[in-house]
Every structure is written in C-alpha cells, then in structure tokens.
C-alpha cells in the first residue's frame, strides 16, 4: 500500500482533468468564481496533505474527494448566490432557449443536495456509480437510485414547463 501521493502525479491529474474539476466545482458552489477557487483551494489542500493519501484507491478518486469537499464547504459559505447566475451563455442561444435554461437552472437548484451531487459527478465528471459511491460514502445501488430520482424530478419539472 502506498504512503503519500507524489506531487508529479497530482499535477498530472490536475492537468488532465482541470476542466472537469472546475465544471463540477462550479456546479456545486453555484458560481464560476466560487468553483475556480474551490478547485484551487482543493489542490492546495491536497498538496499540503498528500502524505495522507494511503493508496487504497485511485489517486484521482482521492483528488475528487478533496475538490468536492472544498466546493461543498464553499457552497455552505455562499448560500445566497443564485445557482449558475454568473455563467456566460454562448451567443447562439436564443431568447426562448435562454428562458428554458433559466428554468432548467432553477429546477436543478431545487434538487436535494445528494441528487445534485450525483448528477454533477455522473454527467460533468463522468464518474461511474462505484466511484461516485466511494466519493460520497454511499453504495453504488444508492447512487443509481439517487440518479433515477434526479432524472424523474427533472423530466417531470421540465414537462410541466412545456405543458403548464
């Protein structure tokens, strides 16, 4: 079993998956700046505590834990922000689409925290059930059930928008 994570390995994961880390952290914190800071703070914490990595799981999974933890802490501090209100939309989004996106944001913002986390980790980080379960301390079966519940909630809420 390994004791400690080599700095160069942490750097490799950082460079390979930075966009995914930031995307998940933005989704968790609800703001672009909050997400970027959470990733920065998470990796600072990971470097400082890299001797704590025990090698009983992939390094990347451990780094995901650290970053998600950092983002969740940041989220607790910044509860007043409206979810993703500071994300810039691309120019080709029409007014109607922009309205739809606002509804989607609001809907996702209303999901329970665990459902949101599972959703972000599955879709933005592309982690499988086992990795998500490890990260959140729940069984893979619970991850699947949570994801299904999130899907059902989103479908139902968005159906109501289209057919009020």
């Amino acid at each position: 079993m390994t004791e400690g994570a080599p700095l160069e390995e942490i750097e490799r994961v950082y460079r390979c998956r930075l966009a995914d880390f930031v995307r998940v952290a933005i989704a968790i914190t609800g703001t672009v700046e909050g997400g970027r800071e959470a990733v920065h703070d998470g990796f600072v914490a990971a470097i400082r505590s890299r001797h704590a990595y025990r090698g009983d799981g992939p390094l990347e999974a451990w780094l995901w834990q650290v970053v998600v933890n950092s983002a969740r802490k940041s989220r607790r501090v910044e509860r007043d922000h409206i979810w993703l209100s500071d994300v810039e939309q691309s120019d080709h989004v029409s007014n109607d689409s922009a309205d739809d996106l606002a509804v989607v944001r609001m809907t996702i913002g209303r999901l329970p925290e665990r459902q949101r986390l599972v959703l972000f980790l599955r879709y933005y980080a592309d982690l499988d059930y086992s990795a998500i379960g490890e990260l959140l301390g729940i069984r893979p079966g619970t991850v699947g059930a949570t994801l299904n519940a999130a899907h059902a909630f989103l479908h139902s809420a968005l159906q109501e928008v289209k057919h009020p």
Partner: protein
Amino acid sequence: MTERDPRVATLLNNVLPIGDEREDWQRIVGDATRHSEQLRRRSLRWSTRRLGLVLAVTAAVGVLSAIPALAVENGWWFLDNGQLTPATPVAIVTSGGAVDEAWHLVAFVSDPHGICVGVTSDGSKTQGALACGMPIRGAPGAASVAPAKLHWVGYGRTSFPTSRAVSTFVFGPTADGVARVEAELANGDILSAETIAAPLELKLSLRFYVIELPPTVEVRSLLARDVAGTILERFPIRNSVRTP
C-alpha cells in the same frame, strides 16, 4: 451499469458548457508552500515565549498515569518532577483565550515516553494537563508498537477556572494525515478543529488539535478526518479521562 440520459446530458451541457480553463499549477504549489511556511513561522514565534506557571495537575495520559502537581515559577511545571527528560524544546503549538488568561497547547518529545502534549494556563496558574506516550501513527516509538494498536488521534482533557467560567479542553496529537478532529458531545452537538502542523523544532511528522468544550458537556467520541473528509478513526471516550 452507468446509465446516462441523453436528454439530461444535453440539458446539463447547455446550462454549464465545458469551458477552457487556464492552468495555474505554479500558483497552487506556491500557495501550498506558503501556507506551510506561515504555520512554521507562527510556531517558532510562539516557541520563544516563556511561561510562568505556578501549579499544575495532570489529567490524561498514555504511559504516564499522572504527574504530581508542583509549584514551579518561571518554568514548565511538567519538567520539574524528574519524570520527563525533554529530547526537544518545549514548543507552543497554538494559544488562545484572553490576554491575561491565555492558554497554550504545548508539545515536546520526552525520553523515554515519546510525544507529550499538554494544555496549560497563564491565568489560573492552578491547573493544566499533560499527556505522554500516546501510540500515534508516525510518532516517535510507533515502530515498536503493533500496527493494530496505533491510533490516528490521541486524547487528553483538562479543565481550569477562569474569571468567567471553567474552561475545558480536549486536545492531543494526531497522525500526519489527519486534517480535522471532531468531538461528538454527549448532547449531540459536534465541535471541530483543524489540526495544526508540528512546530519545526520538534522535527515530527505529526499534527495537533485542541477543542474548547462548552461547560458541563462531555465528549462521547472523537473523529479523525483526512483532508477529503474521510473518517480515519472514531475514537470512543468512555469517561472523561481516557487513554487511547
């Protein structure tokens, strides 16, 4: 099986498109290094202070069950009874409390008892506690202890009166991988503290924690968590003074 719903995937991609993020690895490494240096400097600054303690009483311990109370002026009360020979300077890890009633978390390595951690008070000059020889992972002497008997977190406890109330602390060393210690209280509340790196002069790969408790509430257990929040150890406290 890991299902992805294409419609949900599209929605999520639309609300938060993947962006071009600028790498900033050097700043991350710089901040990580700077933070460690700040902790070391603070420890060194505190270690130059001298305490004038008069009387002290020992509470929790590893191999030592108790250190008799002694009246010692202008020195460390716990060094004057001859039971402990310091192998390192006595370092102040952190301090708190009011100016005239400051408390200090102190640590040193003793011969032959290994790591010693204590809380002492400037104010009451009547009580404090020192715990030695806790079998912590990475502590001096840990190599001679069976791995199953090594702990991530150690436990000491002390109370002493201040002008306003009785202050009660739980404190101890932790293994290097512990980022946070949480105290689960008998009333269901949880108090927590970030661990503090060992002062440089101790040359230890250990960390320390101290948590001030509310009056009359006991600790039920201690949780040692790593930086990711993973519980490394849940240490039950069966009474107010317990050896790991």
